């Protein structure tokens, strides 16, 4: 049994006084910087999209909608994402055959208006 006593982390605590803090103040200091591999909001590139609907079928929460406003031959596609429902699993990115969907590092969506959460990509 080792010797016990109170205040075993005193030295470390004092040492920390002279170290840089591990936290940073986030409020009002711009957007957070995240890793390149971080899954943020998805991006949509409609050039190759064939509107197969695989992404919508695999989306667990039904957050993503690919809407064709034109006709079957003349496609006018747009993607609408409800960020409030999106869980950032990026299964749609994996499911997409034509690599139309990618993820970005955009992760800051806080808003006071619920309608702002539905965005067109």
């Amino acid at each position, binding site marked *: 049994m080792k010797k016990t*006593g109170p205040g*075993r982390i005193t030295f470390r605590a004092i040492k920390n006084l002279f170290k840089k803090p591990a936290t940073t103040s986030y409020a009002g200091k711009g957007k957070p910087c995240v890793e390149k591999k971080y899954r943020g909001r998805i991006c949509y590139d409609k050039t190759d999209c064939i509107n197969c609907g695989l992404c919508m079928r695999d989306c667990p929460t039904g957050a993503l909608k690919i809407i064709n406003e034109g006709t079957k031959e003349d496609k006018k596609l747009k993607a609408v994402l409800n960020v409030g429902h999106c*869980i950032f699993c990026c299964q749609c990115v994996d499911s997409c055959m034509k690599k139309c969907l990618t993820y970005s590092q955009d992760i800051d969506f806080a808003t006071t208006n619920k309608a702002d959460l539905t965005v067109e990509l």
Partner: protein
Amino acid sequence: MSENISNNNKIVLPIGPQHPSLDEPGRFDITLEGEKVVNAVVGVGYNHRGLEKVCESKNYIQDLYIIERVCGICSHSHSTAFCMAVEELAGVTVPQRAEYIRVVVAELERLHSHLLWLGVACHEIGFDTMFMYTWRDREKVLDVLATVGGNRVNYGINTIGGVRRDFNETINSEILKTVDSLEEDIKRYLEIAMTETTLISRLKSKGKLSHEDALKYGAVGPVARAAGIAIDIRVTEPYGAYKEIPVNVITDTNEDVYGRTAVRILEMQESINIIRYCINNMPEGTLTVKVPRRIPAGEVIVRVEAPRGEDIHYLRSNGTDIPDRVRVRAPTEANWHGMKHMLKGGNLADVPITIAAIDPCYSCTDRAIVISSEKNTEVMDWRGLRRYGIDWYKKQNIDLTSLKIKEV
């Protein structure tokens, strides 16, 4: 007041559903005689979200992400269990490399879960400095997990039939670097836990659950191992890459919170060894194997060792792409049963740490559509307070009446 304090000097102290020592809602009615706990009623179920019902209406790929969100901390073990169940029904074998990656992520998750627990436990006993230190070190693990998986907690590394992301040299070296620095931290925690008098006095012989009781109440994970039961699914029923990786089962004979702390700290050390082994012995190969969307009919029970203990998934399919029944038995669910037993006879001061010591995960237990039940709130004048709040906001030109909150 009058209902809380009865004649013979007994006080019924409600801890929860909202209480600083609980991370999630749960209710514990503690009957006190002075400072001594004479009875405890455990009430859980506040987090029931009906995930199992949701799973019965979505296909397997969607379910994977829903199951992953059963719990925020042991998400990987739930998704691993679900994947293993589906793969077993489909009759496919996952590539070796994928199995190794799963193990690395699982062990990183264990590190992060145990560090989180250590912090919470220290906070419960009023040792906030240790709390901050452990959570600071936990960030390192989370950063690695974010690089590996893409998210900080629900990594989404698993997919049915393999894993979604590969490891490369940079990730390997980053993991090894993190693990090296963590090893030193863990040694320090162990030393503090062994030598700090105030810490020991708060943990020793608190929340006793003897070997027999642990067996009787079906405790799992570190709670059982701290009572001397060598049960670890990684060893007793190896799955995935654990069939090849040497794992030591950490047990302790203290049967109390102190033992659970020691077990968890030593398990972190063991996890680090496993991660090193995996990184050094990782086979080359593909990441995924094709799994049909329609899973053949059948049923399967899968066990996985989550950081909190044994995680059991039951899956039954009926030949379509939608499961017939999914049942998740989260580890915490097994540990609740002994809680009353652990609380009784202790002091009020021991209640938070005893509850925390099983590393409770209320969401896990309840797997749970939160249905608001304001009917049960016992606030003295709830309606008045709410009215006041609405009026106050009205003065600030914010109208809250459009929000639909049920009147009591």
